[in-house]
């Protein structure tokens, strides 16, 4: 008896539509964000995450309207990320109805942004998103994970585990951890990455990238030691409902909210 592990459907949004990419690149349409949010809420989603992948900053207001509309109909935590560069962006998203704001590239460029936003609005609403790629070190025959920014296009030289620890110290309330090698592959999470980060920090870790079936969700919790699992395509195209996912996790001894 205690805290439930969370299932978080993720909605990548551009031009007012939910889309799904493969390895951060090819996109296909998955529907209307407000309608999809309502459906996941009815199915028992524990939270919703929206990533605004709009390329042009001119179109950023669209996500605000979507969040405003979702927030009047869906009463579970809403996280929004994508294009957050300054504290004013955090404020705009919170004012639109977001409960948490996810910061990725801007945290690498300016770590103080995380501390400033947490000081203003509380750690509970600051999520640091980390996109990591596995690197094989031939000299020691070991692997580590490097942080990438700009939607996965730019290497930073930062080690993902160390970066997560630093962000926890700076005031992140939670880490959203995506394996870029796995994202869109439907191959399952990068469990060693998820576990390494989860064991290194005291704040919750959301596992992301690679979910293709319900066993992957179970693995993310039991082997990856994640506190929450995030998935997109398995829910968007109706393969599984959130409720089916939760029932499956319950059968595997994972405590969820049913």
């Amino acid at each position, binding site marked *: 008896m205690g*805290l439930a592990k*969370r299932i978080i459907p993720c909605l990548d949004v551009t031009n007012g539509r939910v889309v799904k990419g493969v390895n951060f690149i090819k996109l296909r349409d998955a529907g209307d964000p407000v309608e999809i949010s309502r459906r996941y809420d009815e199915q028992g989603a524990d939270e919703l995450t929206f990533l605004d992948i709009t390329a042009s900053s001119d179109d950023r207001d669209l996500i605000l309207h979507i969040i405003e509309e979702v927030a009047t109909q869906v009463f579970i*935590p809403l996280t929004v990320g994508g294009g957050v560069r300054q504290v004013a962006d955090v404020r705009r998203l919170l004012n639109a109805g*977001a409960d948490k704001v996810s910061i990725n590239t801007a945290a690498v460029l300016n770590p103080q942004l995380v501390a400033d936003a947490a000081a203003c609005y509380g750690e*509970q*609403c600051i999520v640091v998103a980390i996109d990591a790629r596995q690197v094989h070190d031939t000299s020691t025959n070991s692997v580590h994970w490097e942080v990438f920014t700009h939607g996965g296009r730019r290497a930073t030289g930062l080690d993902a585990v160390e970066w997560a620890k630093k962000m926890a110290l700076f005031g992140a309330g939670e880490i959203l951890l995506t394996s870029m090698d796995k994202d869109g592959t439907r191959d399952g999470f990068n469990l060693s990455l998820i576990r390494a980060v989860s064991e290194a920090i*005291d*704040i919750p870790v959301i596992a992301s990238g690679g979910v293709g079936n319900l066993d992957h969700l179970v693995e993310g919790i039991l082997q990856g030691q994640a506190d929450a699992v995030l998935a997109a395509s398995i829910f968007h195209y109706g393969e599984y409902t959130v409720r089916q996912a939760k029932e499956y996790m319950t059968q595997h001894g994972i405590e969820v909210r049913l």
Partner: protein
Amino acid sequence: MTDIAIVDYGMGNLHSVSKALEHVAPNASVVITSDPAVVRKAARVVFPGQGAMPNCIRELDVRGLRSAVMEAAANKPFLGICIGLQMLFEMSEEGNVSGLGIMSGKVTRFPALTMKDDSGRKLKVPHMGWNQVHQATEHPMWADIANDTRFYFVHSYFVEAANLEAITAYSYYSFPFVCAVAKDNIFAVQFHPEKSQAAGLTLLNNFVHWEPN
């Protein structure tokens, strides 16, 4: 006249609370306010809170809201949420700050280093997500909410109530902790009803209709 005043002392995001109350009480006037006069005139008062308690207390005083909140807590239906629960107590370990002292007891941080679940896995702080709320006493605010229903939590500190009679619910996170207190016209919860889907809306609806004796 304002039916429901949500006390705004400049800390964090009150839109979720406001939207959820408007949803359950579409005909009520719900206002987010930092004006002590509006708080004094309101029929019901919601006292929310996010962030660090020392900042919350300081900002409450900067805006001259302390006495209006104390009066509301003494004489009208009053709902504290999250830090709004914690601030009712005498003191907090968070910055060793004094609270409003309306409830006896103190606010303590979860000892992350020593906390494990039943399988020996370490537990994260903040305590974030959906946990079961075990009702310790009957109360009109629990109407139509099954015992052990899950609500959404996000917090690193919890209250240790000295007056055991005020405890109306517990949750369990490595150990049992108080997640709701009730005293006369005050009801205050550690979790976020505005983010707790159907159960949370039921609790807010109960608040809108609650007539304390």
